[in-house]
């Protein structure tokens, strides 16, 4: 059975799945984590997933709104995550055809790069605002997100899979 799901005919996605996944990602981001630098950005990861899979449903507007909510919820400069997520969404949409061509491992590599670029934009914004560099540990977050990618893409495609019995017919 193909785990990446790209060669399998999927059911059309339900809007409720997308909304629920974003809600759960926001919830995971708001959990009281110990060391935030190594925790993946779940919202960014789920956002890139939907931009790659459903570029016509989830786009830059959704990314921007999610970014604003994240900014307000974390008390950072308004627009920091909005900018980073918009860029991540754009890259996801732009590379969606290319990414889906690869297997799970290479997909994760692409996603890691996209999230790293988004993190870099965030870093530039904070440096411009007068904050100091928080150390190279911030690179760990996109890497952790990339490691989670195969699992997340399997999980988020689960509602769209047809039962195996139906496929054999």
């Amino acid at each position: 059975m193909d785990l990446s799901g790209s060669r399998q005919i999927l059911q059309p996605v339900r809007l409720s799945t997308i909304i629920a996944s974003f809600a759960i990602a926001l919830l995971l981001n708001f959990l009281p984590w110990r060391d935030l630098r190594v925790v993946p950005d779940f919202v960014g990861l789920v956002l890139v997933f939907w931009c790659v899979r459903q570029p016509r449903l989830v786009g830059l507007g959704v990314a921007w709104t999610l970014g604003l909510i994240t900014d307000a919820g974390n008390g950072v400069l308004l627009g920091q995550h909005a900018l980073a997520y918009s860029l991540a969404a754009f890259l996801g949409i732009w590379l969606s055809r290319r990414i889906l061509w690869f297997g799970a491992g290479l997909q994760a590599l692409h996603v890691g790069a996209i999230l790293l670029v988004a993190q870099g934009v965030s870093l530039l914004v904070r440096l411009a605002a007068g904050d100091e560099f928080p150390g190279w540990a911030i690179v760990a977050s996109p890497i952790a997100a990339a490691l989670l990618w195969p699992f997340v893409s399997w999980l988020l495609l689960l509602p769209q899979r047809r039962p195996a019995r139906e496929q054999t017919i």
Partner: protein
Amino acid sequence: MDHTPPPFFKRGPAPLVRLFFFASLSLALLVIDARFRYAEGLRSWLALAAYPVQRAATTPVELVGAIGSFFSTQAQLVAENERLRAKALTYSQHAQRYEAAYAEAEQLRKLVGVQERLEVRAIPAEVMYNGRDPYAHKLFIDRGATHGVRPGSPVTDETGVVGQVTRVHPLVSEVTLATDRDQAIPVQVVRNGLRAVAFGGGATGTLELRFMAANADIQTNDRLVTSGIDGTYPPGLPVATVMRIERDAENAFARVVCRPAAGVDRGRFVLVLTDETVKPPRPEEAQAGKEKLRRGRARDKDGPVR
């Protein structure tokens, strides 16, 4: 000849155009927020929108705690009870002594004719989560403007100063920890009354006394408490203990590193202190200097007083 595609294929503007649109929108917001602080209303609304998710996120943690307490054994409870009773006894002794001293101080104040100090009101609050921001040290508490929290209020736990409320939303507020680099607390050495300003040490989780003369009378294990001369922190709250002092012949200043007294990165419950003391108006030149220094931040609202 019309070469536009039929409306069937229309998908709105190209992704690159959208990226430019949203990026410029974000940048405009960033500038407005950082420079002019006009976006506070929008921020409050967004924070209100994020509130249910934040509440939901803290629920599983509470649930785990509840399950843990359900399985705690009888012996544990008895031991804890005993410990707490002993603690309560010492506290009640302290409280009695404090009350006597307070009455005495009050009387002396009346004799000297100094303005009476008003009671500090404390609002208990629960920590919801740490700010997801590696650049700043912040946490979020579940009390906001509707509960009477005001920006600038000091926040403490049972052992000392945790930080200061820097932003208040309707239902939550944002606390900048004492270890944040932009946070300053006017302190006093308990041993000799030497005044200084404690700055956050950033990622190291320590506090630092900057601009202390190299020959200043300060020692390792000196306790620092708030001096109260800033009018924001009530005097006498424990802030930190001096960990080490680096005196360098090259520098005119000593580098004093302190360990925060409060569990700045631990603990689930904090107290937000609000006092209704009447503050005298700030001097003119200090205001002008503050305007010049203002870099779009509301941190250390009242500024360190040296």
